[in-house]
């Protein structure tokens, strides 16, 4: 061996000496991701805005009953309100042109009554926006949740079991993927929203909010399921999964304990963006008359109501649109922050 001394060996055999450049992160990756998210000021402001919007819409009944004393779902063509000591009709007669017909009252800018004016049926637009927000946010969040849950399960099954399971799931996804989102949603909606869905034991009524929720959730499933499948596919090649398989652990155990923790960050990244996407889709369907059905209201249907009043009472259409924009901007900024914190390499489209 000559002049080179042998140094005492440690038990491990290293052919290449590796270094952890910053071995400071001893805490769990979740904790550090959350911490990074918490440091992202834009994302935190967005989260605050979102929580504020949710809180405000949850308070809709309080506003309608205790402040405005109006029923935003009943027409009120003969209604009168008191502003600054004067009584005014909710649907005053036209003064311009031939003076025929009535035009809903414009914004009073009095918080307690018809803040944003009335719609064609004399209903309080501001109260309706609060109620509509509940529906819009409910559809956005629940369809986002359902979509991601279904997509994650499908993607994990396809990626983990491969072979026939993968083939069937992948072909299903391919078909839905190739189908233009709006056309699929339109086809499903036009058949379902007027007659409901009848699956033997389960019957979903025509006006039920479940229909738009399920339709929106299902059309976006491939958007999430495909990347999840890809992640699981590459995970399966990794040593720790192979070791778990070799050790005889059950599939269920491996999926739950080994695969899911590694898929979860990517799935979380999708959530805010899917919610924003779903809110936009819901309003688009509502505009077309195949989303939320009366007497329910959403921001989309209120914009639709405002279309006829666009030049005379623009606030009916402007206000719900602004609400959608605020919520979606907040969701997208939050989504960017979540991506940076949890899965910076994730490739996402901005929206549809």
């Amino acid at each position, binding site marked *: 061996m000559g002049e080179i001394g042998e140094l005492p060996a440690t038990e491990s055999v290293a052919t290449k000496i590796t270094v952890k450049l910053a071995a400071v992160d001893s805490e769990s990756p979740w904790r550090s991701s959350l911490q990074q998210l918490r440091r992202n000021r834009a994302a935190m402001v967005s989260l605050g805005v979102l929580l504020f919007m949710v809180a405000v819409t949850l308070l809709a009944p309080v506003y309608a009953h205790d402040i405005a004393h109006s029923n935003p779902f009943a027409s009120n063509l003969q209604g009168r309100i008191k502003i600054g000591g004067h009584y005014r009709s909710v649907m005053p007669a036209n003064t311009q042109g031939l003076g025929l017909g009535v035009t809903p009252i414009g914004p009073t800018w009095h918080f307690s009554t018809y803040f944003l004016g009335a719609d064609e049926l004399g209903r309080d637009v501001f109260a309706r926006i609060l109620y509509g927000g509940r529906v819009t946010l409910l559809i956005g969040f629940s369809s986002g949740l359902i979509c991601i849950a279904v997509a994650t399960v499908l993607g994990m099954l396809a990626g983990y079991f491969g072979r026939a399971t993968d083939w069937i799931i992948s*072909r299903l996804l*391919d*078909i839905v993927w*190739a*189908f*233009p*989102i*709006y*056309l699929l949603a*339109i*086809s*499903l909606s*036009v*058949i*379902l929203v*007027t*007659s*409901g*869905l*009848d*699956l*033997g034991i389960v*019957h979903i009524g025509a006006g039920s909010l479940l229909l738009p929720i399920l339709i929106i959730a299902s059309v976006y499933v491939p958007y999430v399921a495909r990347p999840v499948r890809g992640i699981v596919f590459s995970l399966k090649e990794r040593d720790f999964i192979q070791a778990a398989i070799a050790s005889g652990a059950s599939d269920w155990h491996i999926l739950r304990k080994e695969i899911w923790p590694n898929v979860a960050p990517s799935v979380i990244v999708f959530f805010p963006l899917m919610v*924003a996407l779903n809110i*936009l889709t819901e*309003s*688009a369907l509502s*505009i*077309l*008359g*195949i989303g939320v059905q009366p007497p329910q209201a959403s921001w*989309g249907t209120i*914009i639709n109501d*405002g*279309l006829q009043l*666009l*030049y005379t009472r*623009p606030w009916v*259409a*402007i206000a719900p*649109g602004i609400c*959608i*924009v605020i919520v*979606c*901007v907040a*969701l*997208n*900024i939050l989504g*960017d922050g979540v991506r940076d914190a949890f899965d910076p390499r994730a*490739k996402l*489209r*901005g*929206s*549809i």
Partner: protein
Amino acid sequence: MLRFTIKRLASAVLVMFTISVLVFLIFFATPGVNPAARIAGRSASPQVLANVAKEFGLNRPLPIRYGLMMYHLFIKQDLSSYVNIGDRIIPQITAAAPITLSLIFGAVVIWLLVGVSAGVIAAKNKGKFIDPLVMFFGIAAISIPVYWLGQMVLLVTQGGLHRTIFAWAPNGGYVSLTQSPWQWALHLLFPWLTLASLYAGIYARVLRGELINNMNEDYIRTARAKGLSERRILYRHALRCSMISIVSLFGLDVGVLVGGAALLTEVVFGLPGVGFLTYQGLQNLDLPLIMGCVMYGAFFVVLASAVVDVLYAYIDPRIRVVA
């Protein structure tokens, strides 16, 4: 390359077939829905219902029903509306198609110009104030519902300001290119801008991300080591590689738009394109019309994405080998 093209087109035909089956199932086999009543429209007489049942073979087995639907749609092309009785659907679609194509063509030009340059500017100025600024506009653009934006554009150009600044803005509607190219462009200007804004936002965001990722790739370091200028590295190397994902997005988007996603813009601006036709079908619950629009739209999407994939293989040499 030829083999790839043939293979890709063959798979497109397969996808078209499955989509047609899916459409068929939605329209004719949804549980709890009577297809004859839905096709015939509201308050149809028993005579009409019987006609519908015969035309689409509603008492015959499923495969024959599927065949009949495809026969009326594509071979005899005699699918007719039961709402506006006797109106042939297919000629309406072919008449509306140029309007939709005009709308999409202009929007594509605008969104590519704006989206790509915004993405490049943002990526180039990463770390300076201009990057978050551009990206905020990008986020705003993808967060605005298109039809609402259209309404706001109408409100501004057709409302109070119509007598002054926007006196030149036309009152909506469509003028064909052959009739007057100038009026054609003028009538489409605001629809173009409205439709383009969303996609410009998406493309700016995607391109910025791709560029920043690509600028961290090893081959960019090689390019620097070769002594190339930063400008050349950005445009000839990073941008060229980033365009791969832009092209794949682009194909899907154009396909989906032509297939009917432009319908909200058409509805707001009163452009009588294919989307508007679908909208009319929805308003009247005219099922044959919707079925026709959906099927033709979906087929166009599939065809467009096949064409794009071929184009994609041309841009990205790696694809050709894999496929």
